[in-house]
C-alpha cells in the first residue's frame, strides 16, 4: 500500500467571517482542488476551521509547492494521520527526531497539542506530557532536552473530532482571502514592475483579476505584447481563469499626439486607457479597475494627475501600491516571480509619443478642452472593436 501523508491547511481571515464563512471555505477548497488536480489519488476533508488533504507521500513536495500559490491559506503542515494513541505518536516522534540527534550533540524540543475534540479525555498539556515523556525516556541519553520557549524542534499534535494529525513542520501560505470570494476586477497591465504586483495583491484580497494591455504596435515591436502575455500567465498562476484584453492603442495615441497640448499627453493617454478599461469592465460586469500607481513615483502619478485620470470613470479604482516605495515593490515582484520578466528591456511607449515636459499638476478643464479636439469616442470604439481577447489559462 502507498504510504500516505495528511496535509493540514489553516486558513487566514476566513476564520474571522461570520455567517458567510461557508462561502469562503467553499471558494478556498475549490481553489486548492484546482492546484492539486494533477495529483492522483487525493482525498479531501474539511472539518470546521481546517482543510485536510490525504495524499500519497511521494507527492508531498509537489503539493507543498502548489499550496504556496493559493491566496487564503495562512499556513499548512504535512504530517501523518493516526489514532490518538500516545505510544504510537511517541514512536513516530522518535522516528523523526532520532536522525537529527545523530548530527547534533543536543536538541531542544517540545510537544504542542491542539485539541478541538473537547470530549477527548486528556487536556492538551496532559497530552504534551504523555507524548513528551515517552520520547524523552527513549532519547534523553542521546542529547534530547525539553525546552518549551526555545525549542529547535516542535512535534505538533492536532486532535480533531474525526482524526488526529501529527506533524513537525509549518509552511507559510500567501494569506489573504481565496480568489473568487471578492468578485472580478480589471488590471491595467503595462509590462513594468508595478502593475503585476498590484494585480497579485488584489488576487490575495479574493479578487479574480483580468488584464488589459494597451498595445503600441507597430511603433514598438511585439516584445511588449509577449512580455505582457508572460506576466499575465505568471499572475494567473495564483488564481486561474483570468482574461487578457489587448487593445490596439496607436491610433488614439497618434490622435492625442497630433491634436492636443504636448505637456498633457501622458494624462490624456491614461484617461483614454481608463475609459476603455471601464467599457470592458462594464461589458463583463467587473467591479473595479486596478493600477500599479504609487504616489509621486513618476510625473503622471501626482495627486492632481491621479485625480484627473480617476474622474473619467465611475468605477472604483484600486491602487494597492499607492503608499509603497519602489524597493518594497521590487521585493514583492521578486517574490511572485514577475520581476525578471518586467525588467526585460522593452519601452512601454515609443519616444515619439512622449512629451518633453509632462504636466505634473494637470487641470481638468484643459484636459477636456484637448479632448474636444479629436473624436475620442469613435477612436475608443474602434480600438474596442479591434481588441484581442485571450484566455490566460490557454497560454
Amino acid at each position: 500500500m502507498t504510504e500516505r501523508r495528511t496535509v493540514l491547511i489553516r486558513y487566514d481571515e476566513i476564520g474571522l467571517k461570520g455567517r458567510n464563512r461557508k462561502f469562503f471555505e467553499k471558494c478556498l477548497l475549490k481553489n486548492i482542488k484546482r492546484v492539486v488536480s494533477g495529483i492522483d489519488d487525493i482525498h479531501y476533508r474539511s472539518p470546521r476551521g481546517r482543510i485536510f488533504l490525504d495524499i500519497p507521500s511521494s507527492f508531498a513536495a509537489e503539493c507543498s509547492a502548489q499550496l504556496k500559490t493559493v491566496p487564503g491559506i495562512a499556513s499548512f503542515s504535512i504530517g501523518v494521520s493516526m489514532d490518538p494513541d500516545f505510544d504510537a505518536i511517541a514512536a513516530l516522534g522518535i522516528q523523526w527526531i532520532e536522525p537529527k540527534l545523530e548530527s547534533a550533540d543536543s536538541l531542544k524540543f517540545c510537544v504542542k497539542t491542539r485539541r478541538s475534540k473537547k470530549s477527548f479525555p486528556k487536556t492538551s498539556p496532559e497530552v504534551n506530557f504523555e507524548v513528551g515523556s515517552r520520547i524523552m525516556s527513549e532519547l534523553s541519553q542521546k542529547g534530547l532536552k525539553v525546552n518549551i520557549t526555545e525549542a529547535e524542534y516542535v512535534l505538533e499534535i492536532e486532535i480533531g473530532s474525526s482524526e488526529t494529525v501529527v506533524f513537525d513542520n509549518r509552511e507559510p501560505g500567501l494569506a489573504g482571502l481565496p480568489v473568487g470570494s471578492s468578485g472580478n476586477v480589471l488590471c491595467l497591465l503595462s509590462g513594468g514592475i508595478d502593475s503585476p504586483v498590484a494585480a497579485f495583491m488584489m488576487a490575495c484580497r479574493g479578487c479574480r483579476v483580468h488584464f488589459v494591455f494597451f498595445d503600441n504596435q507597430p511603433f514598438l515591436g511585439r516584445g511588449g505584447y509577449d512580455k505582457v502575455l508572460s506576466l499575465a500567465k505568471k499572475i494567473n498562476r495564483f488564481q486561474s481563469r483570468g482574461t487578457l484584453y489587448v487593445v490596439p492603442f496607436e491610433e488614439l495615441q497618434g490622435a492625442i499626439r497630433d491634436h492636443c497640448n504636448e505637456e498633457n499627453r501622458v494624462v490624456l493617454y491614461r484617461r483614454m486607457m481608463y475609459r476603455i478599461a471601464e467599457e470592458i469592465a462594464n461589458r463583463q460586469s467587473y467591479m473595479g479597475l486596478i493600477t500599479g500607481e504609487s504616489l509621486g513615483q513618476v510625473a503622471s502619478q501626482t495627486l492632481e494627475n491621479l485625480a484627473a485620470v480617476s474622474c473619467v470613470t465611475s468605477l472604483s479604482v484600486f491602487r494597492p501600491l499607492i503608499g509603497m516605495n519602489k524597493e518594497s515593490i521590487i521585493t514583492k515582484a521578486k517574490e511572485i516571480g514577475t520581476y525578471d520578466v518586467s525588467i526585460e528591456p522593452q519601452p512601454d511607449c515609443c519616444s515619439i509619443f512622449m512629451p518633453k515636459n509632462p504636466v505634473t499638476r494637470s487641470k481638468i478643464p484643459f484636459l477636456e478642452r484637448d479632448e474636444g479636439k479629436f473624436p475620442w469616442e469613435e477612436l475608443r470604439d474602434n480600438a474596442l472593436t479591434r481588441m484581442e481577447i485571450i484566455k490566460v489559462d490557454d497560454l
Partner: protein
Amino acid sequence: MVYFDNAATTPMDEEVVERVHEGMRDLFANSGTPYKIGLDAKCLIEKSAESIATALKIPSTHRILFTSGGTESNNLLIKGLCFPDKKTAFLGLEHPSVTESLAFLSQFGNEPFSLLPFQQEGRLDLSSLSLLKENRVRLLCLSHVNNELGTVNDPLKIISALEKESPQTRLFLDGVQAIGKLRLSPEMWKGLAGYSISGHKIHGPKGIGLLVYDTKLVLNPQMHGGKQQFGVRSGTLPLPLIMGLETAIKNAVAQTEQTQNHLQGLCRRLIQGLRSLEEELPELKICFNSLVDADVMRQSPGMVNFSFPPVEGEVILHHLEAKDIFVGLGSACSAHSREPSRILMGIGLSEQQARCSLRISFSRTNTADEIDQFLLAFGSAYQSLYPTFLQKAEHR
C-alpha cells in the same frame, strides 16, 4: 519574408541541418570515453578540425579550439592570455564580447589602451601603432570586419606595421563577420595571436564556434572540468554541432568569391535604390555610415548602414516588420541596451543620427527582388512617419 539581418544570424544551410541531424541521431557517444563508439566520435571531431584547418589554411603553428561561439572565443583569448596584467589595446568599435572582456581586465587595474582617436571610417589608422610600443601593449584586439559598419581591418597590413612599429604586440582578430565574405590570406596566421569564428553567422548552427590561436601562447582556461581540448577549454565536445560547423565553414570558404560578387551586386542595388528614393522623396536625406562603392579590402560587401533623420530606426524597423521585412538596428547582442549605438557614436555620428539608422546585412540567400520590396516598404514607412518625427524634432 525578407530577412536582411544576416550580421545578427543566418538561416542554417539545409546541408548543415542534415549533418547536425545525422550527428544527433547516430553519434551520441562521449568523445572522451575509451571504448570504440567514443573513439569513433573522437576521430570524427579530429577529422572535422583537420578539415576546417585545411579550408581556412590554418598552419600547424596554430591550434583550433571548439567553443560555444564568438563571445566565448573572445573571452577565452583575452582573459586567458592577458589576465591579470598583460597590457591590451583596442579601437573601441569592437563587439561587446571584446570590449566587455577588456573592461573585466580593467577591474584589476589592467586598463586597455584605446585607439579610438585613431579610427578612420571605423578602421584603425596604422600611423597610431607606434603608440603601442610606447605603452608596452602586448595584445591588440580588433574586429576583422566591424559588426555594425562592415568596415575591414586588413590583417596583413596591420601585422606588417606591427612588426615595424611595435614588435612586442600581437594581434587578435574577431573574425565572426569576416568568414565567407572575405578570403582569408594564409599569410596572416603567422602574425596572429588568435582569431575567432562563429557558426551561426555563416549558415551554421548556434552554440558552436572556434578560437584559433598560436600554440606558443599559454591560455589560462576560463572553464575548469574534464581537461578536454588540451585542458584549455573543458566540456564534452558537441559532435553534431562540430559536424555542422565544419560543413558551414567549408561551404562559406568554397563560395567566398561567388558570395562577394553576389553581395556586392545587392549592395549596389540597395545604395542606388536609396539614392533614387532620395530623389523621389524631397523630405528623405540619407547618409551612409558604411563605405559606399569601396573594395572588399576596405568594406565587407554584405553590409550597408545608413541614417535618415529625423525618423528613428527602431520605429522604421517595426513598420518594416509589419510587412515581414526584418532588418537590423545595430548589434543584436547589444539590443538589450536602449542607448544609441556605441559604434556609430564612436565614428562621430550625433546621437540623433545614430538613433535614426538601420543596418542591412545580406547573405548569399538574398535576392535583388527582396531589395526592391525593402525599398518600397522603407519609402512608404518613411513617408508616413516623417510628419510625426518632424513635429517631434520641432517641439524639441
